C-alpha cells in the first residue's frame, strides 16, 4: 500500500520535468563533449578529409586499410608510433606504480606530524607544467656539460659523457626518469588514501600473531588496497599511452624517431600532412587497442579475485 502511494506521488508531470531538468546538464555535456566528438571522429575517419581542402568524400574503410597495409606511409607512421608507445607503457607502468606504492608506505609509517610535509613534497612536482618539467630535465641531461654527466664524471662512474638525449637506451631512460619524477605524486596520493582506509585492528591482530612487516603487507595491506591498485594500474596504462609532452619537448621524437609516440604521429598526420581522415582513423584504432588492453587487465584481475 505504502509503495503504491509513493509511486502515485512521484508520478505527476512535475516530477518528470524536474527529472529531465536535473539530468539534462549531464546529458547535454555528455552529448556535446563525448558522444558528438566520438561520433564525429568515427564519421571523419570514413572520409577523405583534408584539413586545408575539407571533406573530399566518403571512402568507407579505405583510411583504415591504408594504415594497416604494410609499406604505406601511414602504416610506417602508425606502427612506429604504436611500437614506441607500447615500449614506453611496458617500461613506465611498473616503476610508476611500485615507486608510488613505496613512497605511500614510507609516508604511512612516518610520525603523524611529518606526513603532510612529505606528502606535499612528493606531490608538488605533479602540479608543474610539462613545459617547465621538460626545460629542467633538458638542462639536467644535456650531453655536453649537463648536470648529470658532470656529477657522474666527478664521482668516477663514467669516463666519457653520455649522450642522454641522442642515443638509446638513454633517451628512453631520460623520458622515464622525467615522467616518474613528474607524475609519481598522483598515484602516491591515491595509495595514501587507500592505506588510510585499512583497518588498524587488522594490523594489531597481525602483530599479536607475530607477523613481520612483509607478512603484514602481503596478508593485510595488499588485500585491502588491491582494488585501488588495480584502478591505479589502469589509469597509469592510459596515461602512458597518451605520452606526448615529454617526448615532444625533451627528445623531439629522437634519436631517429625512436621516441615518437603514437599521439605525436597522429598529430603529424593531421597537422603536418593535413590528413584529418587518416589521423582520426589512427586515433580510433589507438582507442580500440587501449580498450582491448584494459579489458584484458579487468579479466586478469577478475580471474585473480575468483
Amino acid at each position, binding site marked *: 500500500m505504502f509503495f503504491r502511494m509513493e509511486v502515485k506521488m512521484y508520478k505527476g508531470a512535475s516530477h518528470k520535468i524536474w527529472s*529531465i531538468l536535473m539530468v539534462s546538464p549531464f546529458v*547535454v555535456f555528455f552529448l556535446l563533449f563525448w558522444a558528438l566528438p566520438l561520433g564525429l571522429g568515427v564519421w571523419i575517419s570514413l572520409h577523405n578529409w*583534408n584539413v586545408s581542402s575539407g571533406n573530399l568524400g566518403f571512402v568507407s574503410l579505405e583510411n583504415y586499410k591504408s594504415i594497416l597495409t604494410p609499406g604505406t606511409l601511414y602504416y610506417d607512421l602508425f606502427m612506429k608510433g604504436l611500437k614506441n608507445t607500447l615500449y614506453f607503457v611496458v617500461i613506465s607502468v611498473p616503476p610508476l606504480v611500485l615507486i608510488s606504492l613505496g613512497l605511500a608506505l614510507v609516508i604511512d609509517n612516518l610520525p603523524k606530524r611529518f606526513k603532510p610535509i612529505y606528502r606535499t613534497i612528493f606531490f608538488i612536482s605533479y602540479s608543474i607544467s610539462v613545459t617547465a618539467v621538460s626545460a629542467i630535465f633538458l638542462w639536467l641531461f644535456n650531453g655536453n*656539460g649537463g648536470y648529470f654527466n658532470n656529477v657522474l664524471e666527478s664521482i668516477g662512474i663514467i669516463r666519457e659523457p653520455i649522450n642522454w638525449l641522442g642515443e638509446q637506451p638513454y633517451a628512453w631512460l631520460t623520458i622515464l626518469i622525467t615522467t616518474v619524477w613528474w607524475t609519481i605524486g598522483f598515484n602516491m596520493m591515491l595509495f595514501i588514501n587507500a592505506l588510510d582506509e585499512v583497518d588498524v585492528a587488522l594490523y594489531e591482530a597481525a602483530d599479536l600473531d607475530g607477523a613481520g612487516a612483509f607478512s603484514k603487507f602481503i596478508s593485510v595491506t595488499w588485500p585491502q588496497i588491491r582494488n585501488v591498485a588495480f584502478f591505479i594500474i589502469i589509469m597509469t596504462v592510459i596515461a602512458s599511452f597518451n605520452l606526448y609532452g615529454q617526448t615532444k619537448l625533451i627528445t623531439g621524437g*629522437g634519436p631517429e624517431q625512436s621516441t615518437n609516440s603514437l599521439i605525436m604521429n597522429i598529430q603529424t598526420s593531421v597537422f603536418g600532412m593535413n590528413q584529418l581522415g587518416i589521423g582520426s582513423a589512427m586515433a580510433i584504432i589507438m582507442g580500440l587497442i587501449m580498450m582491448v588492453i584494459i579489458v584484458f587487465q579487468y579479466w586478469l584481475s577478475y580471474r585473480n579475485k575468483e
Partner: protein
Amino acid sequence: MKFTKFLALVVSVFLLLAGCSNGSSSGPEKTEDGKIKISFINGFTGGDGAYMKKITKAFNASQDKYVVTELQEKDHYTKFKSGNYDLVVIHGNNLETYKQDGLIQDIGPVIEKAGIKESDFHQAGLDIAKLEGGMYAVPLDIHPLTMFYNKDLIAEAPKTYEDLKSLNTKLQAQSEDLYALGVPSSGLVEFYMLMIAAQNGVDLKDGEKLNFAQDKYADALMQFHDMVWEDKVSPPKLGLDGEFQTFMKEAKEGKAYQTAVALTGPWFYGAAKEKYADKLGVAPIPQIGSELASYGNAHTIALSAKVEDEKVKEGIAEYLKFMFTPENLINWADGGQAPVHLATLEKIEAEQEKYQIAYQNSKQFENYVSPPQVYQFGEQIRYMNETVFSKLVTTENFTKKDLMKELEKATKLAEQVAATAPKK
C-alpha cells in the same frame, strides 16, 4: 515520448549555442568608429615579434580608414587553416603547399594597387615568392644559415673548409675541449642538408617530389660524417641545437666542449650577443662544398584565398605600401631579420654596424639558393631531418652505402607524401 522531450531539449541547446556564434554579414567587418578591419596572423612569437607589432601599430596610428589586427601565434598555420584571416606569414618552403591547397591567392593585383613593383625586391626574395602562375606572396626577409664566431678564439671569419680545419688544429693544440665548430644531430639539420646540396650544385627537386637518392648528394652529405669522425673539426654526438649550445659553452677539462664558430640560425643572435658582446663576430657561411652558396628559409606575406571584398584588398594594399618603405621596414632589420626590399637594404648597408646581422645576412643573398618548391616540403624531408642526418653524424662506421640505403627510403617516403597533393 520521453525520448522526444530529450531530443527537443538537446536541439534547443544546440540552437542556443548556434545563436551565440557570429552570423555572417555582407561587406567587410568594421570597427565601431567605421574603420575596415584587416586581420593578420603570423608566427613571430620570438624576439622579432615586437618589431612587426611596431610596424602595425604605426600603420594603425596613421590610418582613419583601416585597422590591422595582428595576431602572433606559435602555431599560426593551424589557426590560419581553421580561422578567418586576411593576411598570413608563410615560410618560403611552405608557399607551394598553401598554393596547391587553395588557401592563398595571387597577390599581384594587390601589390600593384599598393604601387609595389617586383623590381623593388632582391631576386632571391622573388625566387621564393613567385610560383608557377603568379606572385603568391610579398617576400619579407630571408633568414639563411649564419656564421657566428668568437673573436677571442679566432681573429678573422673562416672562408673555406680548409680554414676551419686549420683553425681546429690550432684550437686542439690549446685544449682538447676546443673545436672549430659543432655539427648537431637534430634541430637545424634541414638547413645543413640543403646548404650542402646548394654548395655542391645538387638539385633535389624531381618533378613533384624531392629526390635524395643521388650519388652526388650522398658524397656531399658524407662530408658532415667526415667533419665529426675523420677530420674531427666537430665534437661527436652533439644533440638538438648542438652547434649553438657548444658555441655558448665554456670549455671544461673533459666535461664540456666549446667551439669557436657556429653555423646556426640568425634568431640566436640576441643570446649570442648578450654573452659575447663585442667579441661576437657575424659573417656569411664558409664554402664547405665545391662552390659558394647559401641556404635558409624566408618569411613571406600571403593573401588568404577567402579575401574577396575589394575594400579589404584596398586596405591590405595600404598596409603593404606602408610596410614596404625603408623607414618602416627598417624596424624588421632592427629585430635581427634581413629584409629583401632593396630600398631597405640600402639603408641597412649605410648603417651596417647598427644592423650587423641583417647586413651580414644580406651579403648571402647573392649566392642564395631557395628551397625546392614542392607540395608538403616539410613532410617530404621529415625522414631526412629526423633520422638520416642523425645516423650520418652520430654513427662512426656509417658508410656511403648505408647512406644511399637511407636516401632511397627517404625518397620513397617523399614520393608518397607528394602523391597526397590535391589533383590539379
